[in-house]
């Protein structure tokens, strides 16, 4: 059996060449790896308790993609897929929480003071996801850039490479997209009446 690392690397190359079936095979592999990593995270001793979603993606990349290959292009592609999947995983998680807690408000049933869940915060991610989809409705590129930057953890330079636009443009796109998202996530009648 082929090692996952070779398999993923090959799929990335195939996909880059225009083989769309490769993407269909790639997606579940990356998804599984991300979830598995998220699971194993808690079992490890961690000195700091903050975890960035982007750290998971980096780790998944190191594990899945053969690092001996000239990796730069596959890296961008990989992160493109992973960012999207990460968003999906997080949104599913937040939504399942919201569904579980619907109507109940924030639960405060504690065992030894350990409370890990915050209802409002899970709602924030769902709001972000809704807003992103709304943004994609009239400006697909900005929504994609936000996904790569915040869910995928790509740098501005990497995004510029991946999307074949200038670094300055990425900066400006992000500036407006973030401002628009912030406003969309803050309830209020700020949107222009038409």
């Amino acid at each position, binding site marked *: 059996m082929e090692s996952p690392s070779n398999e993923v690397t090959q799929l990335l190359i195939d996909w880059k060449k225009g083989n769309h079936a490769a993407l269909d095979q790639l997606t579940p592999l990356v998804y599984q790896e991300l*979830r598995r990593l*998220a*699971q*194993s*995270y*808690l*079992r490890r001793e961690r000195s700091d*308790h*903050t*975890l960035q*979603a982007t750290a*998971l993606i980096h780790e998944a990349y190191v594990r899945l993609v053969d690092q001996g290959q000239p990796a730069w292009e596959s890296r961008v592609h990989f992160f493109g897929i992973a960012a999207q999947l990460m968003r999906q995983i*997080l949104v599913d*998680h937040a939504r*399942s*929480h919201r*569904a*579980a*807690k619907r109507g*109940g*408000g924030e*639960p*405060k*049933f*504690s*065992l*030894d*003071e*350990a*409370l*890990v*869940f915050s209802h409002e*915060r*899970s709602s*924030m*991610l769902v*709001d*972000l996801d809704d807003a992103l989809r709304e943004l994609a*409705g*009239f*400006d697909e590129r900005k929504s994609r850039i*936000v996904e790569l930057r*915040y869910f995928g953890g790509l740098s501005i330079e990497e995004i510029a490479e991946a999307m074949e636009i200038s670094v300055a443009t990425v900066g*400006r796109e992000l*500036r*407006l997209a*973030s*401002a*628009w*998202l*912030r*406003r*969309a*996530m*803050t*309830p209020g009648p*700020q*949107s*222009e*009446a038409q």
Partner: protein
Amino acid sequence: MTPDRWRQIEEVFQAAADHPPAGRSAFLDNACNGDTGLRREVESLLGPDDDAESVIHSAISSTSESLVNEQSEPVIGKRIGAYLVTGVIGRGGMGSVYLAVRDDDQYQKKVAIKLVKRGMDTDFIVSRFRAERQILASLEHPRIARLLDGGTSEDGLPYFVMEYIDGKPIAQYCEDSKLSINDRLKLFRLVCSAVQYAHQNLIVHRDLKPSNILVLKEGVPKLLDFGIAKLLKADLNASGSAHTSNTLRLMTPDYASPEQVRGEAVTTATDIYSLGAILYELLTGQKPHQFKNYSSTEIERAICHTDTDRPSVAISRAVKTPAKIRRQLAGDLDNIVLMAMRKEPGRRYNSADQFSEDIRRHLEGQPVIARKDTIAYRTGKFARRHKYSIAAAALLVASLVGGIVATTYQARRADRRFQQVRRLANSFLFDHYERIKNLPGSLPAREALVRTSLEYLDSLAGEAAGDASLQQELAEAYRRVGDVQGHVLSGNLGNTTAALQSYAKAQSISESLLLRDPENERVKTGLADVHSRLGDVLSYTGELSRSVEHYKKGLALVRSMTPTAERRRNIAQLDRLLATVQVRMGDTAGALETSSEALSIYEILAAASPSDRAALLDISSAYSSVGSLLVRSGDLTAALKNYQKAVAIRERLTREDPSNIPYARDLMIGYGHMGDVLGSPTKPNLGDRAGALANYTKMVTIAESIFGADPTDKRALSDYAIALMRVGNLIPEDGDNAKALATFSKSIGIMERLADADQKNARLRMNMVFVYHRLADRYLIAGNRAAAIRNYEKSIALGEALVKADPNDVENRRLLEDTYRQYTKAQIAH
């Protein structure tokens, strides 16, 4: 959002963002060129860039944090026993707590499941649980979370199923609500009474701590995990010191008693100690011991050997403690807390009740029994040395009381003048008072009458303190004075403080009469009456727990007498009043019990006189209130049954007397209740939309006919609009859209008319916000975007006014936010 518009916004935004903030306004004037919409749009987007970034970052990172924390046990959607896990509530040293619903249940009541983690002594826990489950399950108290079930999961891990409590840990609740010292004490007394109840059932908690006491929004504390600690921990008695470190590892040492630290016998006194430590924290904001490294030697030294700082000293350590609070704690409260926390179990309060009573005495300014822990006390010398003098004092008190009684009997006189004055006062007080009681505007006259009579009676009573029947008259006089001063259920002068004082006098006179003559039914009835009124006034002034106490005392008195129809009715009446207060306190279970008693009394009364319409009305409203309490406690099926019974009676009444408007309206409300519980989309329901629709339709028919009979009846009109709203709301999104549009339009048309006539009705406007919103949704489905946007705007305008008028009303706020969201979507989507 059209692409052109978006491009235009982007262009102006990017240019403005490049401008230094100082020149932006002028730039925007120029760039927008009078397009105020564009300008508003860009301005709302401009802001600190990093702020926008951090909003997005924190949305993502908090969810990823929660994700990895839960991935270690991916149980959501899985089953534990007969329960389906729907979420995680918390994690800790002994395992995790999950939110779950019973899978085979129709109404999916929420429960909390504590799943013990691997590595604990599971065999021990399971066998212990089997031995104790009966006792634990029998613990039924409104302020104790119930243990519902328990067992072993498929993986062989023990679990306990408990009532799910949605509240805040008590310490946090006190801080968040900024409760005063006195309010904290009152709240704490509620905790004590729950602990007392468990102790009476021979159950010791063993792990009382603030996180095990959750306070509901309504301010009612609920104790969690009663008896669970015993199941989870090794038997301390048998263990000796080897287990000590293990025990400590599992418990929070902040509230642990010396005997627990030493591995000695745990008794109810252990809980008293923990209660003391909790009160310490509630009063000072600090834990009683300051541990640095939580080592076992440090813990043992602090808890078993070191004197605990007095709360008033501890609070001085905190920065910026007002001297007032320090003074408030110094003295009684210091002594009370430290008495509960004494190192020797035998020298703490005897019971949670005694602890609580001492707090009450402090609250009422009476001397407390807690004393400073002196060296003499500690060595026990005091009691030995004073054994004889204590006995002597007791004798002296007894003889004094006897003496007073004897003297008054001798001093009793029956001269003519005395009797004349007494008759006069009584005729004023009873005959004349009754005659003018119902005259409008007679309040000042009644007060003068009562006062004058009272003065006479008072002076007579001074002459004949031992005359029981005179005392009885005096008690009744005070009760009447109280009524006039401030009995909230009838015309009064609005002085509730004075009323409470008068009632208290009536109470103490009656109580002393009862001491002499315990079976006197006239005194008992009078005293029950006074308690009932105290309950009324205290519920009005918001002192709910005291109100409950008085109602209960009144009930106990009436129950202690031979039952007659009149007394039964009296009990049911008191039950209904009591249940109302219990509901306000969040004590649904208690209210349910009380209302059920009222219901069974009305059933007995109605059976005795089956055609008595008043009795039938009583019984139907009792069914109805039991129904709504069952809804509150989540038992929708039982609620429906009660609603059905209420409706059946009302249908009969309406059939017999079709022109009776109040009967018809009661019936309409009954149908509304049934519709709600069957399938209202905005309430907990049984998912029977068709059944709900049928009932709501009956509502509409009745409302329409009441209104038809009297077109000036605004309430009927409003009922009609609300019934239509409910019908409209039940039509599914993919259902008959035209019918939904018509129904909502009709409803809002009526509401608009009502709103014109009644500028201040907030409830009506709240309904309008909702109906405009729904109407807009329906227009959107029908493809009429312009009408949809118009109605969203109406909804928003009204909603904003409501939120502005009452910024704390969460429901309005949520409604408005929802509308904003839909409105924005409606604008963008096209």
